[in-house]
Structures are given as C-alpha cells and as structure tokens.
C-alpha cells in the first residue's frame, strides 16, 4: 500500500511539473506577442543576422525606438526564413510591428493581406526612386519603404584582362563578351563565374541576360528567353564558365572570382567591400544587353513594412519608427554598412561624393527593375521557380534550352 501511494504521488507530481512547464511555455509565448499587454514594447524583425545589437544597424534600430518613445525589440532572421515566419506569425495574430523584408516577398505578404499600405499609414514616399519602390507596389499602392537597393554588374580582374589582351571597354554586347571570354580562356585563365543555383538567387542572376535579350517573364519560352539561356549554356559547354555554377550561390561564386583565376564575375553591389580586400585590381562594367547597351538588371534590397495589427492604435508609433529608419540622415550610414545604393537621389549623391566607386552602381540601380514589378506580383514566384529549374536542366545538359523553357512555361502557366 505505502509504495503504491508513494508512486501515485510521484506520478501526480510528474504530471503537475509537466503541466506547469507547458503552462510556462504558453505564458512566455503570449508575453512575446506584440498584441500583449506591454504597450511600451514594439517588435521589429529584419533579415540581417550578421548584425548584432552592438553593430551600427542594431544601435540605429534601438535609437529609432527610443525616439518614438518605446522600447523596440529587434529579432533578426535568416532572409529565406523571414517570409514564412511572417506568414505564421500573422496566422497566430502576433506579427511584428515593423518588419524589414526582401523586396520580392512584399507581394506575397500583400497577397496574404498582412501588410498596410504606406498611404494608409501616411508615410511619405515621394522622394523614393520609382523603379526601386516598384517592387513593393501592387495595383498602384505601395506597401513598404525601401531601405536601400542593390543590383548586379560584372566585376572584372584587370590583370587577367590585360594579360589576355582584352579591353574592358570593348565589352558592349553578348558577342564581344563571349569573344573576351574566349581570349581569356586561350590565355590559360578562366572566364566567368555566376550563380545558377536552383533557388531564387539563380533566377536573380539569370534575369539580366533574360531581360537583356528582351525576354518577357510571362513568356519564358520565347526565342528571346531561349537566346539568353543558350548564351549561358554556350559558356558552360565551351568551358568559359565552370560547371559548378549550378551549385554556386552568389557568395561561393564570388569566392571563385576572389581566387584571382577568373576574368569576370556577375555579382552584386554588396561585394564592393570584399572586392577591395581581394588583393587584385578590379573594375566594373554593366551587364551588356544582347545587342549592346546595358541590360535591365533586377533590384535587390529590403523594404520596411508595417504588418496589420488588431490594435490599430499602434500604427502611429510604427510610422514614427519607419520614418526614422528611412530618413535621409539614417539612410546614409545604413546603406553604407549594407553596401546598398540609397533609394533617394539626395542620399545617392552623398554616397557617390563619399565613394566615387559607387557611381556605376548608382546608374545601374537607376536602370534596374523590380522582379515583381509590372503587375506580376505573386505571379513572379510561380514563374521564377520553373525558370531556375529550366536553367539547371539546360546547363546540366539534361534538356535543350528550348525544351527546358517549354517545360518551364507550361508549369508557370499552371501556377
């Protein structure tokens, strides 16, 4: 009897502890939600896990909260994670007050109905460049303020080009670029690195060529799209580009270029700092269009957004925070740290004054377009995924560019 009673007690105690543990879990959960009782704390999510609280960015976020009279709690997430995290949070009714998201995600979140229009919040976006804010504009309404923009261009290794007898200024269209790559290869060096990985990064890198041929995302398998994919395939087949472009992220593609063996690298504004450290002279040319001129490049970069809250009284403070983060005075240091091009002409001018090497990037951003712009919105993701699959299929040789893009087009149409 006594042992039984003791074990019963023990078991009950176990259940009790477990219940209290789960109780605790529930409690802290609701405490973390933004709609909790603590009015003085606002939540802020961003995709910059590389910056901790002591970084310039971390400090700026804190100070913008203090200026708005609240405590701003910042949580950084991995950028690929942030969109889904935001959807889940919105479903649970505890979306953050202010959120910084990658620009193509904006249209997805708008589709989910969880973002406020900037006009409803009374945010001023007049000074922002049209093409940059375009990625966050759906049906003529903008849903966020860009914190900065980046885009793609061709970095080149001066030493390799001069050794191969290539004048970078001669790279004006696809033919001259391919000719340059051929010369580099016959001089015993490697041609070009880019990223054709099967993620959004691969589509981002393919777009300048796709658009540079005059391609239209709603018709992937047009002769223009096929021409762009055939160009990449030719480079890989001839050995001008390495086979591992299929696995390269933009970071690993940069690492290949940084070995000093490659003549060109298609890469982004954010590599400027690394380019200075690479230990060789580099230059930048814009990505050429098929028949000359600069190809349209996609804009990258994040938007500051204000997710929908049950308590609409919170928007006033959120607005103050957004205004603070995107004020000209704060954009300059932020975009300098992130190595982005500012979204307003005034700050761009200051950036170029401080660092003349940014000039080609500023004009590249001015010519760039949003991936979700032009009314594509959430159609873009359903086009982008078949497109990167097609790029992979063609470059790996399992399909011809035409077949690969035909397949892509039919699955993009299915959505």
């Amino acid at each position, binding site marked *: 009897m006594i042992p039984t009673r003791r074990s019963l007690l023990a078991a009950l105690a*176990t*259940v009790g502890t477990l219940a209290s543990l789960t109780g605790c879990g529930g409690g802290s959960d609701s405490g973390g939600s933004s709609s909790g009782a603590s009015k003085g704390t606002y939540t802020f999510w961003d995709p910059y896990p590389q910056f901790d609280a002591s970084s310039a960015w971390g400090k700026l976020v804190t100070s913008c909260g203090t200026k708005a009279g609240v405590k701003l709690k910042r949580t950084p997430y991995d950028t690929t994670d942030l*969109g889904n995290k935001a959807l889940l949070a919105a479903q649970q009714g505890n979306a953050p007050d202010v959120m910084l998201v990658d620009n193509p995600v904006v249209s997805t*979140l708008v589709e989910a109905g969880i973002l406020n229009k900037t006009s409803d919040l009374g945010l001023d976006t007049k000074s922002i460049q049209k093409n940059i804010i375009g990625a966050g504009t759906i049906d003529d309404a903008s849903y966020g303020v860009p914190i900065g923009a980046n885009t793609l261009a061709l970095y080149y290794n001066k030493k390799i080009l001069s050794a191969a007898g290539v004048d970078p200024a001669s790279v004006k269209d696809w033919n001259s670029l391919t000719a340059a790559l051929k010369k580099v290869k016959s001089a015993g060096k490697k041609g070009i690195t880019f990223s054709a990985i099967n*993620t959004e990064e691969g589509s981002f890198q393919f777009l300048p060529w796709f658009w540079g041929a005059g391609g239209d995302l709603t018709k992937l398998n047009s002769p223009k799209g096929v021409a762009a994919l055939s160009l990449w395939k030719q480079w890989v087949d001839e050995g001008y580009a390495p*086979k591992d472009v*299929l696995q390269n992220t933009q970071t690993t593609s940069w690492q290949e270029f940084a070995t000093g063996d490659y003549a060109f690298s298609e890469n982004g504004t954010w590599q400027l700092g690394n380019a200075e450290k690479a230990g060789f002279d580099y230059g930048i040319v814009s990505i050429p269009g098929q028949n000359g001129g600069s190809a349209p490049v996609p804009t990258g970069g994040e938007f500051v957004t204000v997710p929908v809250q049950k308590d609409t009284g919170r928007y006033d403070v959120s607005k103050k925070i957004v205004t603070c983060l995107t004020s000209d005075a704060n954009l300059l240091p932020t975009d300098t740290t992130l190595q982005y091009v500012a979204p307003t002409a005034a700050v761009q001018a200051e950036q170029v004054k401080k660092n003349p090497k940014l000039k080609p990037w500023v004009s590249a951003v001015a010519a760039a377009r949003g991936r979700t712009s032009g009314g594509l919105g959430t159609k873009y993701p359903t086009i982008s995924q078949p497109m990167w699959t097609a790029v*992979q299929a063609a470059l790996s040789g399992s399909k011809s560019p035409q077949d690969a893009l035909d397949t892509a087009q039919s699955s993009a149409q299915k959505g």
Partner: protein
Amino acid sequence: MTIARVDRPRRAPSAAAGADNSEALTLRRRHRRRRRLTALAFVTPLLAYLAAFYLYPLYRNLDLSLRDYTVRSFVAGDAPFSGWDNFQKVLDDPTFGPAMRHTMVFTFVSIAFQYVLGLALAVFFNRHFRLAPTLRALFLIPWLLPLIVSASTWSWMFNSESGVVNYLLHFFWVDPVGWLTSPDWALTSVIVANIWIGIPFNLVILYSGLQNIPAELYEAASLDGASAWQQFRRITFPLLRPVSAITLLLGLVYTLKVFDLIWIMTKGGPGDASSTLATWSYQLGFGTLLPKFGPGAAVGNILILIALVFGLLYIRVQRRQEA
C-alpha cells in the same frame, strides 16, 4: 499476502468472516482503483506528449493537405475543404514520377550498401584483435558529426572544379566528373555520402547483435569442421535475423525522409535530377517565395504513408517469426 490467502478458507464458514470478507473485497477494490489511477497517472505524461508532438502535427499536416490553402487563406484560416485535390495535383505533377523513383533508388541502394558494409565491419570487429575498440570508435565519427558538417564536406569533395575527388582522379588520367552538376551523377553522389553516414548505425546495432550469439555455437561448428563462410552462413546470419530486421526497418524509415543531406549538397538539382519526395515537399512548402502549403503537405503525407506500409510489413514479419 500469501499468509492471508492461506488463512481465508479456514475463516470462510463463520458469519463474522462474511463481513470481514466483504470488507476485504472493498479494500481490494479500492486498492485496484488506486492502482489503476496510478497507472493512468504514469501514462498521462506520455499520452500528453504523444498528443502534443505527434497527433496534433499529424492532424495539422493532414488538414493542410486536404484544404486549398493560399497565403491569404493560410493567414485568415478559412481555406475551403478541397478533398483529394492537392494529392491529385501532386500525382499529376511531372516532378512526381522522378521524385518517387529517386526516393526509392536512394533508399534501397543506401540501405543495401549500409547494411552489407555495416555487417562486414561488425563481423570484422567481432574478432577482438588489438586496437579493435579504438578502430570501432573511429568508425562512429560519421554518426557523431553534425549533418551540416558532413554534407558540406562531401559537397566540397565532390566539387567539379576544385574538389579532392576529381583531383585524385586526375592522377589516373580521368577527366573531371561533374559529381553534383551532372544529372547522371548527382543522385549517385548523394547516395554515396548517405551510405557513409549510415554505416556506423548499422555497425553498432549489428555488432551488439553479434555479441549475443553464444561462442559455444562457433566452437561446436569449428569442431565439426565448418569453414568461416559456413559459420557465417549457418550461424551468424540466421541468428542475426531479428536484429537485421529492425536495423533494416529503422534504416528504411530514416533514409526515406533524408532531406538535409540532399538539400545541402544539391538542393535536389541539377534540375530535379536528385530530388526526392522529402526535398520536393520542402521545395513546395518553403523553397519558393510563394509557399504552396497544400501540395507540400500532401507530398509529406505520401511519404508518411510509405513509411507506415513498411512499418506494418515489419510487424507482420516479426509476428510470423515469433509464431
């Protein structure tokens, strides 16, 4: 207790004993009830755990796969019931056939090699030579390494430009192979990496199984003049059968759902040359900017169903063995 039971028949005829008996009965009943409560109290945490971490997620996954979720209805929680639409969509998708085939090839080839090599190593280490324990411990390393480390390492080794595998091959005048970039090799490469990771698991379980085989059997066999191969065929292998069955089943379930290794090494590419049901499910649910929760969950459920079929098969085989 024993004393009471011996006592009872002697007291039974008296009237007083009748009252005593009924008292004993209620006492026993109360005892039993308390015992049942105790049992229940011990079981409750387990049940709560199972419900919270198995039943509810399973239910959610099933719910996701049976509704037409868009990002909007996911947030609002008002997705209309769509029956088997998601499953139909997934089955009709051109990716389904290859993904299913790759899953099966990946699983069965991996398991076959893991088991054979694991068994060979287990028998080898069972011979108790010097340094055997040290070497055996070294063989556990693949198991101890975090998967992100081993998968990234394999990915570097298989790199088509600067990987060590191609570097070694070039000494034998072999042209560089696109291990992870050629559709002909990508699946093979991830299988090779997965076999390497799975061998220790097979080795450990089969080795412990070998320890349970009595040494006398081998002594008797060698007195009868059985060769090493005959001893393996007639003693080791049959007596290892129950352990083998559970090793294979666990390996099967683990391998069916391998996702991280493939995702880190190839992301299912190039194209969909190495995509399995697991990577495809992730790709649908989280791999693009616009998540497709419904079809993603449907693929996940198909995977669960396959694992379940093999689990039931195992139980049947086991029951027949016991009978």
